[in-house]
């Protein structure tokens, strides 16, 4: 079954096409990377799918037409740069408790069940020690793990990640992508990931969508990311280098 189907998606602002007639589908349970140069429309594409910006075309998630408005489809989303007030006096567990349904309940009286759920959620992303930390005091890597926990609170079947590990150190990136792989394997989560890092794409993605305002190619990374395609997407200065080194014994 297709987790996501997009047909003829266009985003036009002030008569300029930011993305034009993009059509693709994504299989349930796969990890798909969206790649392209700066300004190619990767974030615009994800925001249009999520209904955060107006678009033309049709989108369906798990076969259900999706307009973004009051949808009952559970979707997880981790934005590229989370814009929030760093001085916001909000703890990690408070942030997660806001997302736990029902929404018409007082968030400061936590039931034992809710506390346990938040702890387990943080444990899943390796952030159980952060429950009482202020959200503004978290490092880039810690914040990303908390945002993943927030994105999976309601057990979504599909997760959108917009350059989720940018600004995180190499060790943090490794832990982050291992976590995504684990969620994908254990929970069957479909992951749609924007990334600039072709190494990450080769290692973690089942499929890749190359876009530069239009869809350039889609398929398995090893088949699609040829020297020719990379040069057509990123320019002549770029190329694929598949190294032949094996792991040290």
């Amino acid at each position, binding site marked *: 079954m297709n987790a996501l189907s997009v047909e003829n998606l266009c985003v036009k602002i002030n008569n300029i096409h930011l993305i034009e007639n993009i059509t693709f589908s994504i299989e349930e349970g796969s990890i798909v990377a969206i790649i392209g140069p700066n300004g190619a429309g990767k974030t615009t594409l994800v*925001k249009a799918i*999520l*209904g955060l910006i107006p678009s033309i075309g049709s989108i369906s998630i798990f076969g259900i037409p999706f307009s*973004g408005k*009051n949808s*009952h489809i559970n979707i997880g989303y981790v934005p590229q740069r989370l814009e929030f007030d760093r001085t916001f*006096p909000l703890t990690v567990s*408070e942030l997660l408790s806001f*997302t736990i349904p029902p929404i018409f*309940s007082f968030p400061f009286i936590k039931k034992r069940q809710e506390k346990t759920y938040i702890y387990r959620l943080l444990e899943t992303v390796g952030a159980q020690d952060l429950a009482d930390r202020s959200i503004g005091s978290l490092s880039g890597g810690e914040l990303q793990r908390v945002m993943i926990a927030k994105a999976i609170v309601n057990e979504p079947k599909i997760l959108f990640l917009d350059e989720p590990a940018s600004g995180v150190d190499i060790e943090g990136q490794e832990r982050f992508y291992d976590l995504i792989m684990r969620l994908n394997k254990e929970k069957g989560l479909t992951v749609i990931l924007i990334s600039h890092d072709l190494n990450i794409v080769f290692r973690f993605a089942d499929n890749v969508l190359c876009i530069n305002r239009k869809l350039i190619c889609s398929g398995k990374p090893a088949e699609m990311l040829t020297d020719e395609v990379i040069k057509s997407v990123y320019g002549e200065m770029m190329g694929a280098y598949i190294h032949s080194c094996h792991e040290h014994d």
Partner: protein
Amino acid sequence: MNMISEILSYPFIQRALLASVMVGILCPFVGNFVVLRRMSFFSDAISHSAFAGLAAGMLLGIDLSLSSIVVAILIAFLIAFLSEKTTLSHDTIIGIAFSGAIAAGMLIIGMLKSYRADIFTFLFGDILAITTIDLFLIFVVGTLTIATLLTFLKPFLQITFNRDLAYVEGINVRFFEYLLFFIIAVVVTISLKIIGIILVTSLLIVPAAAAKNLASNMKGLFNLSCLFGVISGIVGLMASVYFNTPSGPTIVLVSIGIFFLTLLKPIIRK
């Protein structure tokens, strides 16, 4: 001690004290959203819109509280609508609405045939002139407002944290934003008689800003802001009676005093 009990024995002081406690809880509670969402200029525009409403009420001979509340809500919705539909920045739209409301109010006041002294009650506030009906109105509106905010606290806080994330998580962001603008307009307008058009925004933002300096979590923020609001109301009112100063500005200055004290937190920690 005898002097305090003597002051407290006057019914108008008792009413003023009750009003300052109720508004001292209500304004900072709503003010937390104003501070966290950086909407201070918006609440200022709403209080000044009420001036146009007062002027219209005087011209048409209708209840001034009703006319000011209706105009304040209309201007709040107009700001929200124009922010959605135009590419202009939020503060530019607020600036236009703000100056437009003041200009319209002054124009209408100029059209009045007689001098109206009661406009000064609304401009500068007069807590000592609060009637039992005013108290009842503040109680009913305040209870409904806090009950609404508590019921929908999760979506309100989610939108305050990050609008896009709230939207993706299925919250009707537009509905809750209009509801918040409505609540701010109502709270600002019912507080006018106590603190006045010119200073009402300070009662919304100063206790909330002071609480934000100290609080490490949301629960602490709400508790501390209401506590600071109540202390400002009671201490300010009693000080104004004792020193024979205007009540509204005294309450505001006490809250600003508390705000400056909270700034000492990092120094005390060292």
